[in-house]
């Protein structure tokens, strides 16, 4: 099975059912299918070949959801990019994957012109309105495509071993890595998750997380697979609006991350009828046990799933809800159809209670990192059978006697803020780009809402006039929102270890 057949099968079976509610629009499966076919036919007419990369640089929107399926229908590989990504990183990703096309918002015309100049592989740009007078032979308008191209389903050209998407994630080295997923990886992972969540056609899921984030993306893919309805929002900035929408649309599924749950629990929920809610899911970072209790008290009629995963395997573990009382700090067992165990650095499997690296086996183990054989070799290693891949997660875990997994720590120093991975090195590199910055060190500090907040320490060259505000403004101009430090401290020196390296353990 191919991913875009999630949509095609549902469009054949349930053409008139509402598939997507977003931006004030209610689209049926037939509507989504027709729009995706038109865009796919346009991309093909522009010369897109099987396996070509198409970057999608858009906020959660109707066009973003449609573009994901359109790229796959056209035989391409979609590369979703967080809409708050700044120019340098965006250009890096587009060049790294040699993107042939880019689908983005017409508002960012300066950025588009820069990309056209500096990304030689870019042949076509599709602009979602307003196009602001942008034109040129490489620029097409989404609206014109919808008016001009056929809504007939293009004939398939892929098999399920072909790549479907590259999801760029932050790595500890500071350079983003593109996780390669083929169609079979995604189809397997989506099916396994649908199985344990027990999703059915009547489910109505609210999508708050960006489609550029795999957790957000899979809400769309899974919902279209089981023929449900997705209420797609741009985030949880205005919780009251989201709660009202959940009541109006009778939402049954609420996927969140700890920051969203913290905000939710601060609200007075008595004004909203959320009785249709069937389940809530949490992943990206662990929920504190007190939150688990509070969520269950506020939504006694709904089931809470604690989960763990990394983009390299999509989802890895989930806690069957009946174990929540006894094992509230566990993230559970391997998802259906997969296995996982814990190894020490010598490759020996460890027993219950011992701490080691989590190793994952199953069809959800992705295909490696795009154009990064060394990084791939660290994370994806040969398994027991010839040709198979295991994922070495880089996360330390232990199990209890019954085989339930408990997260202990990360092996690297990556910070988790708002459920997103922030490698200190990526923030430090941005600070070091300023001439006056002599030293920079970035750490995570505990924060009740963010999980960890990012704190930066900087030593400036003597006589430098840079202020905290200058440093923060520079970060904001060069980093995604969730990577911008919450705290910035200018110091005259930083603590050092005997060999002269900055000793972050002494910073706080």
């Amino acid at each position: 099975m191919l991913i875009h057949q999630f949509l095609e099968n549902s469009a054949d079976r349930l053409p008139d059912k509402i598939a997507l509610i977003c931006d004030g629009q209610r689209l049926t499966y037939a509507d989504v299918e027709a729009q995706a076919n038109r865009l796919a036919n346009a991309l093909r007419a522009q010369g897109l070949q099987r396996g070509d990369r198409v970057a999608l640089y858009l906020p959660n929107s109707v066009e973003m959801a449609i573009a994901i399926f359109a790229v796959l229908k056209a035989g391409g590989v979609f590369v979703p990019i967080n809409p708050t990504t700044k120019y340098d990183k965006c250009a890096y990703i587009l060049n790294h994957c040699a993107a042939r096309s880019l689908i983005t918002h017409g508002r960012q015309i300066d950025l588009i012109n820069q990309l056209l100049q500096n990304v030689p592989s870019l042949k076509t740009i599709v602009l979602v309105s307003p196009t602001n007078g942008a034109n040129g032979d490489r620029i097409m308008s989404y609206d014109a495509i919808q008016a001009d191209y056929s809504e007939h389903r293009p004939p398939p050209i892929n098999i399920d071993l072909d790549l479907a998407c590259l999801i760029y994630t932050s790595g500890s080295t500071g350079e983003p890595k593109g996780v390669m997923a083929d169609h079979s990886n995604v189809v397997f992972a989506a099916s396994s998750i649908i199985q344990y969540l027990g999703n059915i056609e009547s489910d109505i899921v609210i999508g708050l997380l960006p489609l550029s984030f795999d957790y957000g993306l899979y809400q769309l893919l899974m919902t279209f697979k089981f023929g449900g309805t997705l209420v797609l929002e741009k985030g949880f900035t205005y919780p009251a609006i989201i709660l009202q929408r959940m009541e109006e649309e009778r939402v049954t599924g609420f996927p969140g991350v700890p920051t969203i749950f913290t905000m939710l629990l601060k609200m007075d929920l008595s004004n909203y009828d959320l009785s249709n809610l069937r389940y809530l899911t949490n992943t990206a970072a662990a929920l504190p046990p007190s939150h688990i209790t509070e969520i269950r008290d506020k939504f006694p009629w709904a089931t809470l799933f604690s989960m763990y995963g990394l983009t390299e395997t999509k989802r890895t573990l989930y806690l069957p809800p009946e174990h929540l009382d006894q094992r509230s700090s566990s993230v559970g067992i391997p998802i259906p159809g997969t296995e996982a165990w814990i190894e020490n650095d010598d490759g020996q499997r460890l027993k219950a209670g011992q701490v080691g690296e989590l190793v994952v086996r199953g069809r959800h183990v992705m295909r490696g990192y795009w154009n990064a054989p060394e990084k791939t070799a660290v994370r994806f290693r040969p398994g027991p059978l010839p040709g198979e891949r295991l994922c070495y997660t880089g996360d330390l875990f232990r199990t209890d006697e019954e085989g339930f997994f408990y997260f202990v720590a990360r092996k690297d120093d990556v910070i988790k803020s708002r459920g997103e991975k922030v490698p200190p090195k990526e923030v430090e590199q941005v600070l070091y780009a300023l001439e006056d910055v002599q030293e920079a060190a970035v750490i995570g500090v505990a924060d009740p809402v963010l999980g960890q907040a990012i704190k930066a320490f900087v030593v400036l060259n003597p006589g430098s006039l840079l202020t905290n505000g200058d440093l923060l403004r520079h970060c904001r101009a060069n980093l995604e929102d969730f990577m911008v430090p919450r705290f910035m401290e200018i110091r005259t020196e930083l603590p050092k270890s005997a060999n002269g390296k900055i000793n972050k353990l002494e910073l706080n």
Partner: protein
Amino acid sequence: MKVEEVLQKHIAETILFSNIYPYSNAESFTENGVLDSMNVIELVAFLERQFGVQVADHEIIPDNFDSISKMAAFVRSKQQVAA
């Protein structure tokens, strides 16, 4: 200082880390990528502190928070109710 000026200054300094607020008062925060979800929570706290108004959960909506003008109108309406 007018409410609009207080807000411009605060958002410029604490969110944009800039000396000036570069947009017009009527321009949408969302469309210009000025605010993220955390900033909105902080702005609510700022309004309560700075202007002594109480903001209820259901009032934290784009109609009240998506531009300098909307926020200023919201503050004034709250102050009138209180007065």
